[in-house]
């Protein structure tokens, strides 16, 4: 009888401890499964690469919507009410989120400011403007911190670190994932730098239609001579187009980088009037949401820059001038 009781107790213990163990394992596998909102397309790719399937990444604005012209809907407000963390630019590129945050008034929502502590470029090279909404932030900075590799990696590390603090059981995984992702991004930069190594850019005068690419050109060691149209995301009026053409001529630009959504008719007019070579870069803030969207866009941008500088320096411009 005693033996039967012992066997019974033994099985009870085995059953109890295996139950506890399996619960603990399940907890570990599950993690804290945060719901992370993002305001811009690159942040979706970054966070998705950091968390993998350990958290849910939710874009605030719908796919294929331009953040410059975005208007919030009740559905988007509901998303904002449902998330645990929100990843923001906070330098002026996602201004739409401020009134939305004010409207939902959530004290418990954790905000990750991707640009905090990042070395920034002042808007249009030492042109300072006092910001009206923040006493601490009186200099206007270039908000396109995500159109770069080195700057993006620093932001990805910041996000991974902060998510790790919120979810310590997944911190190591986030760190590992972010390092692997950073390595892939760096390879792209190294590849572009390698191709540009022997390109003679001495006679090249490069301009962009807006200053969103300043971080990218800086890390490539390429000097931008002029920004010919500081505002973007808007269709130029005939007067603005005329002004753009005048600026290109004045700055003696021979390569102009426009945006992918810059209309062909304007590109044709500029080419006809100035004769400068025109290439298009992605602003990475409009399109579908996917883990590889940022990588694809950056690769395309780097390839375009390499192609533009190589063509213009080796045979193009020199042959033309000869």
């Amino acid at each position, binding site marked *: 009888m005693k033996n039967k009781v012992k066997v019974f107790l033994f099985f009870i213990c085995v059953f109890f401890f295996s139950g506890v163990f399996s619960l603990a394992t399940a907890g570990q596998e599950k993690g804290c499964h945060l719901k992370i909102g993002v305001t811009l397309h690159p942040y979706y790719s970054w966070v998705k690469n950091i968390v993998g399937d350990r958290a849910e990444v939710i874009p605030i604005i719908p796919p294929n919507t331009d953040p410059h012209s975005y208007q919030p809907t009740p559905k988007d407000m509901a998303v904002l009410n449902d998330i645990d963390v929100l990843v923001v630019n906070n330098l002026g590129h996602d201004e739409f989120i401020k009134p939305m945050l004010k409207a939902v008034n959530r004290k418990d929502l954790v905000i990750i400011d991707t640009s905090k502590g990042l*070395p920034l470029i002042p808007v249009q090279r030492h042109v300072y403007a006092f910001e009206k909404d923040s006493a601490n*932030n009186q200099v206007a900075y270039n908000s396109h911190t995500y159109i770069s590799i080195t700057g993006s990696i620093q932001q990805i590390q910041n996000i991974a*670190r902060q998510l790790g603090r919120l979810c310590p059981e997944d911190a190591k995984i986030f760190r590992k994932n972010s390092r692997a992702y950073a390595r892939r991004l*760096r390879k792209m930069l190294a590849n572009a730098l390698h191709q540009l190594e*022997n390109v003679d850019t001495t006679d090249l005068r490069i301009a962009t239609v807006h200053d969103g690419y300043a971080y990218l050109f800086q*890390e490539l*060691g390429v000097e931008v001579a002029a920004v010919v149209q500081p505002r973007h995301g808007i269709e130029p009026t005939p007067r603005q187009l005329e002004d753009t053409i005048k600026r290109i001529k004045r700055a003696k630009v021979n390569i102009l980088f426009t945006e992918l959504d810059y209309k062909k008719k304007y590109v044709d007019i500029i080419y006809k009037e100035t004769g400068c070579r025109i290439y298009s870069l992605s602003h990475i803030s409009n399109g579908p949401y996917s883990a590889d969207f940022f990588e694809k866009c950056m690769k395309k941008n780097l390839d375009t820059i390499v192609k533009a500088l190589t063509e213009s320096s080796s045979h193009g411009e020199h042959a033309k001038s000869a």
Partner: protein
Amino acid sequence: MATTGSERRSTSDNGLKVVIVRPLSARREAVALACLLGLILALMAGRFYSVRKKGLDASHLEPYQQKDLFLKNQAPIMYRSLCSVAGDILDIFQDEGSWPSVKRLEEEELPPFAKDFLPPGLKGYVWKMYPGQGWVDYFGINKDVGKKARAGFDPLKDSFVLRIIDLRGAARPPGPYVENKTDQGKRFTWQVWIYPAPRDYPGAQKLIDKGWKWIVNSNNRS
């Protein structure tokens, strides 16, 4: 006869009335306008002073500090690179418990220690690690300075020190540092120091004495 305020009547010795008529003037309006302009100017001056004072407070620098906005040539690229790699070094330190060597950082393909990720003017940097008790210095000097500059190759002259400090380390850090009072859980802080020429490592304690500048991030939003 009706009189206006600008007329004055008096009687002369011979009994004739003398009427002095002053020319029409807008003195009162002019005075009022001048007062208004003065008030506007005073308000503008007050506003300018208050804004300027705030700006100066925010950008207050010690003599051994320099703002990142005013870095020249390719120094911003190196600064960004060092800021970015600091996070990786901390991750390795936390995973392995010791500061990674320069060789290890090269193997990890981390710029500026791995040169493939830098423009030609920065590829000549040679790095050395100087670890201390609770801190580490990574010192970099460009060995390409002196080589003839050519198109696309303009070696940066500046020397750099990346200093990472473990705030919970055993010893006091070798120089000034900012203690983050708002983030008590913060364990590490890092600094980038610059000297505008190729110079040997001056020793951890002597950066300020030897004229090195601590690059301060202008984006110090807290």
